[in-house]
């Protein structure tokens, strides 16, 4: 059912969305000759063509007072009335060139809509007219959310409430993008990150663990088979991202996303501050959140190593307790293509040896010490500052296999971060 808010026509309130709606109706409702009442594009601006079209429709619907001249002519033809009565105003007569939500003109216009346009609607602030969607679509959409795996339960309820509220308000069913719009595992995120065209990450610059989708607190919720009308009232079926509308009328594209965001906000959801990601919603404000710092904090929280994030790269001590070094981006950490240096591996191995040494009994240490001294060439003393028997690694000892083990250990840190995603905390 169309939704007219104010009056349209001569001396009407003529809000752009109302005018657009009525202009569409006057364009698709035809007169007895099969011609539209308004033979022009809909613009949202009430002009003479619009008010003339309203008046012409009213006239055809016999909703206007019979002109005095016409009554006189009628009297003359009948020839029985000696004294002219005042002009007859039918009970359902309307103001010429004006209609409102309760007017007979509007109701007749709605009744005359062709079936494919029966659901024309608008939203305050929007100049584009669209077609309402069946209530079943919203029901199916919210059931999909309820059945989705990986979403935080409270967050899922907020999304369901949004779908319900948006449909109630505007008769548009919004949907979580079934392909990538729910919770993504690190593998999926890495797949999105790895789509590269001409050297550019065209799907996402977020690596595994760097998207809020990886933690169950985000969805991509947009449109599906949303039908809107071009200026000539022809119907366009748009995609989840409203790309066609965005190209045709960027202001209305942005307005429609803002309308969704307002209802989302009322349901405790937040759009992202990340530029261009209109479809995305989550359950926290990310204006001060760094995806990199959040992942590094998660790695440090649930893993065995120290982690920090700086300038697009993750830094770790590989468990040495010493200096941190950059080992790669999130995709590299996940795909075992990180680049731990030999020095970093040496530091980690030596720290491991020292920790193991510290756990030995004095008796065990003495045995190892004596064995080490015994192996020394005759007349040689143990190197100063090095405990005989304690294995000391140098870069020359590090093999490719050890580098591979370090990359695997880094991957295992990422796996731990993913497995314990309930412990993830948005971090500035």
């Amino acid at each position, binding site marked *: 059912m169309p939704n007219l808010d104010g009056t349209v026509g001569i001396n009407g309130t003529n809000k752009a969305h109302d005018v657009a709606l009525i202009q569409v109706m006057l364009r698709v409702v035809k007169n007895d000759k099969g011609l539209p009442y308004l033979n022009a594009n809909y613009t949202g601006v009430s002009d003479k063509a619009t008010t003339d079209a309203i008046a012409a429709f009213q006239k055809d619907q016999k909703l206007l007072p019979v002109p005095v001249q016409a009554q006189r002519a009628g009297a003359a033809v009948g020839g029985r009335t000696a004294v002219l009565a005042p002009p007859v105003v039918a009970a359902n007569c309307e103001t010429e060139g004006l209609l409102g939500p309760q007017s007979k003109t509007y109701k007749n216009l709605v009744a005359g809509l062709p079936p494919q346009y029966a659901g024309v609607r608008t939203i305050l602030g929007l100049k584009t007219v669209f077609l309402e969607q069946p209530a079943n679509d919203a029901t199916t959409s919210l059931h999909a959310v309820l059945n989705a795996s990986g979403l935080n339960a409270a967050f899922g309820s907020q999304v369901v409430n949004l779908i319900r509220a948006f449909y109630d308000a505007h008769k548009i069913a919004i949907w979580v993008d079934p392909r990538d719009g729910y919770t993504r595992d690190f593998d999926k995120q890495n797949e999105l990150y790895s789509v590269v065209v001409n050297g550019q990450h065209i799907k996402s610059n977020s690596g595994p663990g760097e998207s809020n989708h990886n933690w169950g607190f985000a969805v991509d919720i947009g449109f599906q088979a949303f039908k809107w009308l071009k200026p000539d009232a022809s119907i366009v079926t748009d995609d989840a991202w409203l*790309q066609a509308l965005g190209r045709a009328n960027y202001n209305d594209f942005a307005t429609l996303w803002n309308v969704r965001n307002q209802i989302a906000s009322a349901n405790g959801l937040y759009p992202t501050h990340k530029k261009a*990601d209109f479809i995305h919603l989550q359950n926290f404000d990310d204006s001060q959140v760094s995806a990199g710092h959040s992942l590094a904090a998660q790695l440090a929280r649930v893993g065995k190593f120290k982690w920090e994030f700086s300038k697009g790269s993750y830094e770790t001590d590989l468990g040495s307790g010493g200096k941190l070094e950059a080992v790669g981006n999130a995709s590299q950490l996940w795909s075992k293509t990180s680049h731990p240096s030999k020095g970093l591996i040496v530091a980690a191995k030596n720290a491991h040896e020292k920790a193991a040494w510290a756990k030995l009994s004095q008796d065990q240490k003495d045995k190892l010490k004596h064995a080490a001294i015994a192996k020394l060439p005759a007349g040689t003393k143990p190197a100063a500052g090095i405990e005989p028997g304690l294995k000391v690694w140098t870069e020359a000892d590090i093999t490719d296999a050890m580098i591979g083990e370090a990359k695997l250990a880094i991957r295992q840190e990422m796996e731990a971060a993913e497995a314990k995603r309930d412990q993830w905390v948005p971090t500035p």
Partner: protein
Amino acid sequence: MRSLWLSISLPISLILMSCGKSAPSPSVSKVTIAEPNYQVRTKLDLGGNSVAHLATKATAAKTQSILVMIENGGKPSVPFSLPVAADDPNFREANDEAIAGDPVDSQTPAPILASGEEAKAVKSWLRPIKLKGATCVLAEQEYGFEVIQRNHTVVCLKDGKTSQVWAHSDIGAPTWSSVDLRDPSGEGSDEIVYWEGFYGADVETLTAQGWTWSDGQFHESKVTTHLVVAGTYPTAKAAQAARADINQKKPNCAMNLWVLATKPGHFALATKTTHDPKILPKWKQWQTCYPALAVSN
């Protein structure tokens, strides 16, 4: 990462001077680019005594406007603000982080002005464009984190102002866009080929639109593209799986393939180009990578 290019990051202290008897319009004479925080970040020589500046300027909203200004004969003009401002005032050079042009015959613009990380990431750069009777430059921006968006704007020097004459942007979505400039007729004006790709749920699209320059403005024109097909498949999913397999097994086969519907029930791993792919240096390598490689119009 190299440090900021200090030689051009100093505030410029130019005030647009009166031009004597052939003075520009009053609005131009009021313009000053000597305001605090106005910094020229990079310059592009446009030839003919003209230079394009990519500059930044702090705004009241604590963002940094990114401006393009064409200077002719040492006279500055009213700058043009690019659509996306930077949130982070720390700018750096990121010359290896963007590629522009045709899908199979791309180029690296330089220098690229970058600012911010993640949500605040914005990159901007200039590319020369030849247009008869006008002094112009193509300014482009790329921004976003989870979703990446790009805009492309041609600005020209006119009546003392750097003014927009053409602009296009991809919508915030899994899209990719790029502008290729070419002058196939050799008449001295570049044609614009605007490429846009979209990653739909199954099938992807890759389209080209053209604009030619005449009478001081751009006119939409027809673009002829070649379809470069690496393989055909009965379903989109099969094509996607094949692409994933190729990316894993042949990571050095540097052709970016799209899953395109060629006709009902037929899906191709393919790309498009306006250039003749067979004369490109990469053609032989691609033939090795993709034994079934074929080109159609």
